[in-house]
């Protein structure tokens, strides 16, 4: 994994990550678009759930809603994540550097992960205020953090690889969604289950929470490893 002349892969990783963060910090393109988009989705949720009668147990549905919001917001962000690289073939500039090309994947996935976490930090409290402030929630609420993290890591991991594929094809964002959602379905399935259990609490917490979280993490490990191994073929194609 050695680059040329003592430039270690870790340094390449850090340089690329710093580049992504600096670019985003300056143009704020991804963060702003994702943030605004998620707030709009919240408003749509608001409109749909406002008229429902008291019968609807908002607590039970809340984790499902938040994950739906996260999936579509991250799709929007992933589509943008390679815009900088695609503009004026900057990606080819990176391919010319004597380094292991999967480092580009790691750097971009980490950047996407950080942006998604920032958006989640904005949206989760808002979601709580809009929908859950009325109902009482179980004390295990803070346990929600782990599935959220595991899910976001999985989304960023598999999403970055698919974004690299989609950026070079016609009909990019539709294609990214079409490839991403079936692949991310198991992750979503496990994370929603873990989050629901954490939010609702009760007896299910001990037997349902850990297996669901473990499965989500298992998915992350497998998919990130596969994406990391296959990335060189994808980016050099």
């Amino acid at each position, binding site marked *: 994994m050695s680059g*040329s002349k003592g*430039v270690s892969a870790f340094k390449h990783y850090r*340089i690329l990550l710093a*580049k992504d963060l600096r670019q985003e910090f300056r143009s704020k393109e991804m963060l702003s678009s994702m943030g605004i988009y998620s707030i709009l989705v919240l408003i749509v949720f608001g409109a749909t759930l406002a008229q429902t009668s008291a019968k609807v147990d908002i607590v039970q549905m809340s984790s499902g809603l938040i994950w739906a919001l996260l999936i579509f917001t991250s799709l929007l962000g992933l589509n943008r994540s390679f815009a900088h690289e695609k503009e004026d073939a900057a990606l*080819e500039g990176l391919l*010319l550097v*004597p*380094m292991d090309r999967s480092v580009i994947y790691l750097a971009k996935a980490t950047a996407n992960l950080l942006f998604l976490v920032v958006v989640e930090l904005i949206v989760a409290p808002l979601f709580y205020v809009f929908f859950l402030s009325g109902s009482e929630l179980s004390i295990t609420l803070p346990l929600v953090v782990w599935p959220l993290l595991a899910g976001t890591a999985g989304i960023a991991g598999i999403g970055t690889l698919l974004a690299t594929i989609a950026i070079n094809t016609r009909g990019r964002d539709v294609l990214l969604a079409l490839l991403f959602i079936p692949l991310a379905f198991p992750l979503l399935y496990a994370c929603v289950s873990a989050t629901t259990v954490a939010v609702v609490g009760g007896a299910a917490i001990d037997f349902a929470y850990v297996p669901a979280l473990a499965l989500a993490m298992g998915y992350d490990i497998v998919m990130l490893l596969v994406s990391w191994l296959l990335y060189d073929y994808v980016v050099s194609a």
Partner: protein
Amino acid sequence: MKTSVAKTASNSIAADQDAPAIFVKKLSKAFGARKALDNVSFSLPRGSFLTIFGHNGAGKSTLLRILATLARSSGGNAEVLGYNLVQNPESLRAHIGLISHKSMLYLDLTAEENLLIAARLYGVGAMNDGDSSCADFARGNNSDCAARVNNLLSAVGLTSRRHDVVRGFSRGMTQRLAIARALIHNPRLVLLDEPYSGLDPNAVVVLDKLIAEVRESDNKRTFCMVSHDLQKGLQMATHVLILERGRVALFGERASLGDDNISKCYYASLGIQDDSAKFKDIMARPQDTPANLKGDFARPKDTSAKPKDTSPQANLSAMPNDTSVQGNLSANNDALARSTSQQNQGKEALR
């Protein structure tokens, strides 16, 4: 502005000094039907300036991208600067700079930031004086990188605009910054993919001066340029390569070939002054109705019932399976190749 591009003190040792800069043998690039390159072979000594000409789709850019390790060849092999292109392209990349009509820069970052990132990625500091590596980001003592960057910025005359975002640059300025980025790691081989396309006249002059300057700075540095413009391409060339449909139509030193010979072959490969009757005939009848014209290109509809002859072509229609089909057809292709090699159809010019 006359500061020459920084000469490197300790010349980084390529695999071995006297090996030719580019030694290509039977290089081919084909995927399924399309044969982008068809066993191209040539050898280019170090310090020379090769210009590659050819019609659209002749494989010029494909060849350049393969040499730049951006694309993979499907056959044959190539040694560039002593490194084998197929086995370890990665170590070769440290010695290659690519300048193409796309700037490969980050438009939202400033000129200086772009160069700094490139310098760190290539580990420029480490290369120059060995010990203090192009400092690790956190410590921030990237003095040697900064020195190299400032030097290059002044060489391309962008020192005043170093803190401006590249998005605001003119086409000429972006191109100059792209050249600075390509030379940041003092490459032994500089590849230029139609650098003049889209430049206004004075940017062209500046670019010429810059390339000339870079050539002076190190006479062991090799150049390889893809160009459409015969006059501009020949201006600095020491060697010329003309590609036609992926094959080498002409290769050699410019001096020995002679400019007129080169231009004749250049135009022949483009198929412009083509004298084949059919081509002239069609162009000469502008007043024809399209139907008539269509006749020339469409296959004759009313083919009379063919007697069942047993010539090689006939068993094409026999129930082929995937293997025997190749056998017969390749026999026919050689026949085709022999028959039409001299008769140079101007199909491309029409396209």
